[in-house]
């Protein structure tokens, strides 16, 4: 296998972008990722994006994203209707072929344009479930209840929210941040029992991009590349009543395959507060691991980019030298149906 590293990361997000369309949001983010990578735009060997047309409500909406990358002369390009983390997986696989040495991965979306929780109901079984229009918050609440019934506590959910908001104060890109007290949060009203509004992710518009480089190129352009040591993704049955919602078997399997061990930082894509302990336990992370120093998806959740952002946040800490080995996790589908786990290590780390 070829060694592939993340060599740069850029992001932008806001609760609602009032003026720019997706292309106008993407241009500075892609531009920054390319500039920070040290690799020329026309030198990039492969370009792949992750987005979802259902956010804008227009078929082939993703194609406009190409205006931001400069696809002339024609480029090697691909797209997934998934979070950018899966686009990065494709880029990693593509780099294994050996004929190109770098890849640009970008993801974007404006969740503010539609009624996102209701849009997401249409991801469910089209015969048995979608016609009832169960929104994504309601479905997540079903999982939260199952997790609580398995012997867990609402106090732990509130603690995840409070810790995430406090951590986000150090993140200029976070939308929700500040001092938060778990006890006070527990006193709020439920929106869909057992979830409060604060247990749910904020609607967010934005974009994220990373650049991957292989072998010697990574070493040439980046003083401390964030090497991808393992990456895997697994999916569970789509039927909610077929799965054990209180655990994440797919995360566990992906983590075992990716080789999660000895990490000091974990960026976990848990848009709902109860999902963080589920993912953390599935990965077998001990108490010493710094979980979501960025604040995580509870503080900014650009749908289709939040998973790639976890990878970027983890990688940036390795590039900066503030961490040695990290795990980044991304999820897709209701109730953690599909999960990707990526283990990264900084250059020179033991």
């Amino acid at each position, binding site marked *: 296998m070829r060694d592939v590293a993340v060599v740069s990361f850029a992001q932008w997000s806001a609760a609602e972008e009032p*003026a*720019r*369309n*997706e*292309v*106008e949001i993407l*241009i*500075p983010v*892609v*531009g920054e990722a390319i500039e920070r990578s040290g690799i020329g*735009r026309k030198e990039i060997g492969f370009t792949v994006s992750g987005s979802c047309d*259902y956010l*804008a*409500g*227009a078929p082939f909406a993703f194609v*406009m994203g*190409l*205006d*931001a*990358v*400069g*696809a*002339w002369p024609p480029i090697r390009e691909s797209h997934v209707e998934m979070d950018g983390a899966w686009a990065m997986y494709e880029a990693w696989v593509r780099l294994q072929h050996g004929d190109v040495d770098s890849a640009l991965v970008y993801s974007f979306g*404006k969740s503010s*344009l*539609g*009624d996102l929780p*209701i*849009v997401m109901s*249409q991801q469910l079984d*089209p*015969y048995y479930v*979608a*016609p009832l229009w169960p929104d994504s918050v309601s479905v997540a609440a079903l999982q939260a209840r199952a997790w609580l019934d398995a012997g867990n506590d609402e106090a732990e959910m509130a603690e995840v929210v409070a810790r995430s908001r406090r951590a986000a104060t150090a993140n200029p890109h976070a939308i929700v941040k500040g001092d938060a007290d778990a006890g006070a949060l527990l006193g709020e009203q439920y929106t869909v029992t057992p979830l409060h509004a604060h247990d749910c992710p904020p609607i967010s518009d934005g974009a994220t991009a990373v650049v991957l480089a292989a072998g010697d190129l990574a070493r040439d352009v980046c003083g401390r590349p964030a090497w991808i040591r393992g990456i895997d993704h697994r999916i569970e049955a789509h039927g909610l009543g077929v799965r054990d919602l209180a655990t994440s078997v797919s995360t566990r399997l992906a983590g075992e395959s990716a080789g999660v061990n000895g990490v000091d930082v974990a960026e976990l894509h848990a848009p709902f507060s109860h999902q963080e302990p589920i993912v953390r336990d599935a990965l077998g992370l001990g108490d010493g691991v710094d979980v979501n120093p960025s604040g995580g998806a509870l503080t900014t959740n650009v749908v289709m980019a939040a998973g790639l952002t976890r990878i970027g946040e983890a990688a940036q800490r390795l590039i900066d030298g503030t961490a040695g080995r990290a795990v980044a996790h991304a999820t897709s589908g209701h109730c953690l149906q599909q999960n990707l786990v990526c283990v990264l290590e900084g250059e020179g780390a033991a």
Partner: protein
Amino acid sequence: MSDTSAADPVTKIDTPIELRYRFTAGRAQSRFLRGVQQGKLLGQRCPQCGKVYVSPRGACAACGVATDEEVEVSDKGTVTTFCVVNVPFYDQKMEIPYVSATILLDGADIGLMHLIQEAKAEDVHMGMRVEAVWAPPGERTPSLEAIKYFRPTGEPDADYETYREHV
């Protein structure tokens, strides 16, 4: 509707959907659409390759950089390609046959799609010089309907060299 006979098995279900979104035109397209309402065609020039995009999208698709410089282009141009529509369809506003064309406006580097009227369909051809027929100022909306259609100017055909890169 599913089967009406109680004895026949169900083979189909109705699953109507309705999803409500907002569409925002973005900065560049909003500028263009407001300009068209004022009777102006406003493109944007790429700072790297110098090409002028109409209608602009805020980005040069070839270079991947933002296009900030606004350039007003003419409302006269050259037909680079066209088609004659003979097929009736739901909500059709035009009498068939009618001509839809790509018009390279003078000053622009990318064609704009619009209707050709005041010409027989069989007379429309590549290289034909056309000009916009605008809706009256009070009736213009911020959309390409601010131009009712393009009609032949009567000028001699444009030289192929002036539009060969755009076919």
